[in-house]
C-alpha cells in the first residue's frame, strides 16, 4: 500500500467521510464558542428553565440558573474534545512505551510489565476512574489522568502484539545482523509499521474517553470550574422533569461525537487494513 492510494481509499469510504464530516462539525462548534459567546457559558442569559424555541434569543433554552444552553454546548465542545484528546495522548505515550519495551525485549521485562498491565486492567475501569478522581479531587487534570490510566493497557497490548509479530520479520532480523542499535531499529523500522493500528484505535479511544468523562460528570465528579457536555448532563439531572432538554441536548452532542469518532476509526480501519476484507 503506497501513500498516494491512501487518500483515495479514505475518501471512497463512506464511513470515513461521514465520520470526518461530523467531527469537523464538532470542531467548528468548539471554535465558534468563544467567538459567538465571548462572555462564556456561565453568565445568566435569560429566565431560568426557558424551553428551547420559546425565546428567539435563546434557541436552545436556559438551565436552572438561567444560563444559555447553546453557549454551554459550544464551550463544552471544546472542553469535552480536549479532555478526550489529552487523555488519549497520555494513554498513547505510556502505552507505546510499555508496548515497545515488552514487545521488543521480551523475557522478564515482558513478564513484569505484562503482569503490571494485567493488574491495571483487572480492576473494572470505570470504578478505577471514580476512585482516582475522588481521591485526587475532581479537576480537568485528574479526569484526564484517570482516563489515561484506564486506557493505556489497551494501547500497550496492541503495540506489543505488533512488535512481537514484527520481531520475527525478515527485515528486522536483517537489521539486527547488520548491528543496528536497538533504538534505531525500534524507532525507524518497527514503530512506523505499528502506526496504522494505533491510529485506528486512537480514534476509538478519544470516543470512549468522551463517554467516560460524561459518565464521571454525570455522577457529579466533573471539574466544577469548566462546563463540559458531561457537566451539563450532571447539572441538568436534578431538574430532569422540569426540562428533559437539559440532559438530552448535551447527551445528543456526546452521542454524535462518539458516533463521528467511531465512523472515523472504522473508515481508517477499512482503508489501512488491507488484510481483513469484508
Amino acid at each position: 500500500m503506497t501513500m498516494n492510494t491512501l487518500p483515495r481509499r479514505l475518501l471512497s469510504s463512506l464511513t470515513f467521510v461521514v465520520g470526518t464530516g461530523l467531527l469537523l462539525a464538532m470542531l467548528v462548534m468548539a471554535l465558534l464558542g468563544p467567538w459567538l459567546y465571548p462572555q462564556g457559558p456561565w453568565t445568566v442569559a435569560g429566565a431560568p428553565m426557558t424551553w428551547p424555541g420559546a425565546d428567539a434569543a435563546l434557541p436552545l433554552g436556559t438551565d436552572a440558573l438561567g444560563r444559555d444552553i447553546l453557549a454551554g454546548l459550544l464551550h463544552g465542545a471544546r472542553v469535552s474534545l480536549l479532555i478526550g484528546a489529552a487523555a488519549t495522548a497520555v494513554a498513547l505515550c505510556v502505552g507505546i512505551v510499555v508496548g515497545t519495551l515488552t514487545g521488543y525485549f521480551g523475557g522478564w521485562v515482558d513478564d513484569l510489565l505484562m503482569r503490571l498491565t494485567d493488574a491495571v486492567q483487572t480492576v473494572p475501569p470505570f470504578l478505577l476512574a471514580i476512585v482516582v478522581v475522588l481521591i485526587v479531587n475532581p479537576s480537568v487534570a485528574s479526569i484526564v489522568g484517570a482516563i489515561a490510566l484506564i486506557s493505556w493497557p489497551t494501547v500497550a497490548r496492541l503495540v506489543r502484539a505488533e512488535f512481537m509479530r514484527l520481531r520475527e520479520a525478515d527485515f528486522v532480523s536483517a537489521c539486527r545482523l547488520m548491528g543496528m542499535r536497538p533504538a534505531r531499529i525500534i524507532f525507524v523500522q518497527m514503530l512506523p509499521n505499528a502506526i496504522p493500528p494505533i491510529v485506528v484505535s486512537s480514534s476509538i479511544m478519544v470516543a470512549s474517553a468522551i463517554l467516560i468523562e460524561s459518565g464521571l460528570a454525570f455522577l457529579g465528579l466533573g471539574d466544577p470550574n469548566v462546563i463540559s457536555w458531561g457537566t451539563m448532563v450532571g447539572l441538568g439531572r436534578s431538574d430532569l422533569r422540569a426540562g428533559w432538554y437539559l440532559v438530552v441536548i448535551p447527551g445528543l452532542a456526546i452521542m454524535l461525537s462518539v458516533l463521528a469518532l467511531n465512523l472515523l476509526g472504522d473508515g481508517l480501519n477499512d482503508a489501512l487494513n488491507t488484510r481483513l476484507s469484508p
Partner: protein
Amino acid sequence: MNFLRYLLRRLAQAALVLGLVIVLQFLLLHLAPGDVADVIAGESQASDPAFVQQLRSELGLDRPLPMQLLLHLQRVVTLDWGQAHSMDAPVWQLIAERLPGTALLMVSALLLAIVLGVALGILAALHARRGLDGLISVLALLFYATPGFLVGIGLILIFTVQLQWLPMSGMSSLYGDASWWQRSVDTARHLLMPMVSLSLFYVAIYTRLMRAAMLEVLPMDHVRTARAKGLGRWRIVWHHAARNALLPIVTMAGLQVSSLLGGSVIVETIFGWPGIGRLAFEAVFKRDVPLVMGILLLSSVLVLLVSLLVDLIYTRLDPRIRLR
C-alpha cells in the same frame, strides 16, 4: 498432563496479578491526604485528638506504610476484610448482600446482549452490503455511541413518566408476604429497564463481532459443501456457520465482566438498583476505604476467575474445532 501444567501456570500467574492488584489498590487509596480515622471522626462529629489517636492505633494507622501493607495483605488472606465504617457492618456482609443484585443485572444484560447481538449479527451477515445490513449497522453504531445514562434516563422518561408501565427504582415493591410467582414478576418488572440500559452497548459490540465472524465463516469450504449438499438454509446458517462464529463472542463476553461491572455503577445509580456498583460509588464518596478495597478486590478476583475460565474453555475447545 499438559493441560494440568497449563492450568497451574495460569493459576500462578493469576495469583501474582492479584497480589499486584492488592498492592496497587492499597497504595492508591493511601495516597489520599488524611486517613480513615479523620473520616470516621469527622463523620461522628467527635474528633477530639484523643479519640482520633485511639482510633488510629486501633486501625493500625500509626505504623509505617510497609507495615500497614503487610497487615493488610495478612487480613486479605485470612478473609478478614474489615468493618465498613460508613455502614456499620462488616465489609464482606455488605458485599454479600449486594452481590446477587449486581449478578442478576449483569448476567441478564449479558444474556440479552448475546442473544440480540448474535441474532442481529447473523441477519446482517446474511444480507451483507444490502439494506438490512446497513440498517442494523447504523442501529449498532447508535447503541454503541449513546451514553448509558442517556439510555437509562430516556427509558425512564418514556416508560415510567409517560406511560407509567414500569417502576423506576429499586429491585422490588413488595413487602410482607407474597408468592414466589408474585416476587418473580415484581423483580422482573424492576429489572427490565436497568437490564436494557446496561446491555445496549454490548448488543452493538456483539452484533458487529458476530457479523464479522459470520462473514469470515460463510465463504469457507465446509459451508460451501453443506450448501452443495442441499441442506436447509437455516440449518446451514446455524449448524455450520454460526456455531463456529460463536466462540469469539463467548470469549469476548467473558472478558467483559470488568467493563460490565463499571457500567453497572451508572445503571445502578440511575435505577436505585441495590448492587455493588452503587455500593462502590457510595463507598468511594464516603471515603470508606475498607469497603472500597473490598469491592475492588472482589471485582478483580471475579475478573481473574472469569478470564481464567474463558482461557481454559478456549484451549479445550479450540483443537476440536479445527479438527471438524
